[in-house]
């Protein structure tokens, strides 16, 4: 198995690369960025597996250039950077990392909501800068009891709901279809969800249908006393509309882990006290990164040993 060529698309996590290196012939795509043509000549027919992530996945171009590709094992749960249709056509297997990161992402969603409503980051800055000596801080917004609307009630959305319920937050949601076995209020229209909640959390998968699902109408419905939390994908939100709503005070605030153009979030948001920005760290804990890496490795090992995949997508 040590001769099996596995391509990793970008630096992800040292532990993952180390573990891949002990088991496979690991090829790092970024080591060959200056000589792409040469690289593909030398390696393309021997690469049997690709390990991608939310930054660099496996698009049609990459898949087309790898004639013997058998499996794409994504170091993420999101699949938006993988051309699934192409994989289906070619019979290429795809795995991802569900469940192991659900808790961390849900924790961050609540953490962002608390940070925005209770102005945690602003408070910290207030104390750190010595301003407490000269004056009082003022009031923030209570989080407990606020109505929470979740877009996408999958694993992560449900985990967010469970946490918010412990704060007595009434839960409602929008999904492609109503979920059985839940008492949460369902809205078939996301604008209605936004109009009827105080904190809107985006937790769905990015697909063609959900691109820019949070648009001007949704933002207007959420309004100047409403808050947007996004731990899903930057492309779920019409970012220029979000920025102008925040700058003009038409939206109460936002907590964002993802952006349309990572790693360059809109600079106009940097000076706003009612906005908390973090650099796509939803699953970035030591514990979860290792669990995700172990799952990628297990899936690859299973594949090359002819055993059932642990978390296949297709």
């Amino acid at each position, binding site marked *: 198995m040590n001769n099996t060529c596995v391509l990793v698309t970008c630096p992800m996590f040292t532990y993952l690369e180390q573990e891949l290196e002990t088991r496979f012939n690991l090829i790092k795509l970024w080591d060959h960025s200056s000589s792409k043509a040469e690289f593909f000549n030398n390696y393309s027919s021997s690469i049997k597996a690709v390990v991608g992530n939310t930054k660099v996945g496996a698009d049609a171009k990459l898949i087309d250039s790898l004639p013997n590709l058998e499996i794409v094992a994504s170091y993420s749960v999101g699949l938006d950077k993988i051309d699934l249709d192409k994989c289906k056509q070619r019979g290429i297997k795809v795995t991802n990392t569900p469940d192991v990161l659900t808790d961390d992402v849900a924790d961050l969603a609540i953490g962002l909501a608390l940070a925005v409503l209770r102005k*945690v980051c602003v408070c*910290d800055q207030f104390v750190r800068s010595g301003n407490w000596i000269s004056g009082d*801080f003022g009031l923030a917004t209570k989080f407990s009891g606020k109505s929470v609307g979740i877009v996408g009630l999958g694993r992560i959305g449900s985990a967010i709901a469970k*946490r918010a319920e412990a704060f007595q937050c009434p839960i409602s949601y929008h999904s492609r279809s109503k979920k059985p076995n839940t008492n949460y209020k369902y809205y078939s229209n996301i604008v209605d969800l936004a109009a009827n909640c105080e904190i809107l959390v985006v937790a769905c998968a990015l697909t063609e249908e959900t691109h820019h699902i949070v648009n001007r109408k949704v933002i207007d419905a959420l309004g100047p006393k409403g808050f947007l939390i996004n731990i899903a994908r930057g492309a779920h939100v019409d970012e220029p509309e979000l920025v102008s709503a925040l700058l003009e005070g038409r939206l109460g605030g936002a907590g964002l882990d993802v952006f349309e153009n990572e*790693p360059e979030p809109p600079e106009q948001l940097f000076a706003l006290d009612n906005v908390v920005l973090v650099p796509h760290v939803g699953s970035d804990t030591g514990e979860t990164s290792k669990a995700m890496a172990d799952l990628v490795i297990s899936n690859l090992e299973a594949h090359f040993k002819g055993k059932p995949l642990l978390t296949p997508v297709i």
Partner: protein
Amino acid sequence: MAPENPSHPSENDLPYVLILKPPPSFVIFGDRFFNSTKFRFLKAYESPLPLAHFLLAHAQSVQAILSSGGAPVTADTIRLMPLLRLVVTTSQGLNHIDLSECRRRGIVVASAGTIYSADCADSVVALLIDVLRKVSAADRFVKQGLWSSQGEYPLGSKLGGKRVGIVGLGSIGSEVAKRLEAFGCSISYNSRKKKPFCSYPFYLNVRELAANCDALIICCALTDETHHLINKEVLSALGKDGVIVNIARGPIMDEKELVRCLVEGEIRGAGLDVFEHEPDVPNELFALDNVVMSPHNAVFTWESFEDLRKLVVGNLEAFFSNEPLLTPVGLDDQPHFSG
């Protein structure tokens, strides 16, 4: 003394409530915040007289005081008010009121009850997630434009599965427990006494609690017994991977020792709403990314202040109508704080 208002002559008959210093709500909302048709305020702070003289001159028939954390009710004050029967406080803590003297005189104390418990618990969770997941530090990182230039941000630590030790399982501690359980944390606690009907593991000794948890949350009252309760021994037991969150009172922690532990990496991090000498905060903390601080404002939300307004007015109106108070404190149960 507050000037009489000629356009409301009946106000002259209203009983007085003494205020020694303006409470935070007066500072934020103005001094009509607790207005009622059933009483009026006697504002000691508007007089040039020293307090003792003021009380002798104007407060001899005053039966009630509205106190706040920054306006302590000392034995001296109580002794200068022979008809004092009620102290209403706007704060969660009672450590600024001489409870022994109140008990001796049969003076009733009305507290904030549980109106602040949710906000305090929310603060705990906010600070804990921030420390473990580096929210504020990451927010600074992004807003300084460092994400595009420096790239990857250091990994945080998972909250789920952490063992949480709560010091003081009162109303606030219970609300903290309820919330953190939903994140997959396991709860244990230390209290003056074991709580009946409570399934969380109980530790009689704070040091032992600290040795058996990953996150130590301080939710207890400040009393003679809890002064510097969190000391070198406890912090050492908490250890390198441990986090501490304090939304109770600064003096419950040995702050010098806490700062030393944080600077030398002997604990993982801290979330602090309170300090020993507010608003002075040890400067060494300002350079640390694993510390998240707030200016003693865990209860400072619009909603809590509105709840407070209703509660204070409700307690005072009940008192002056000879009706039961909304949130009387059982003084026999209260430990002492020497101040």
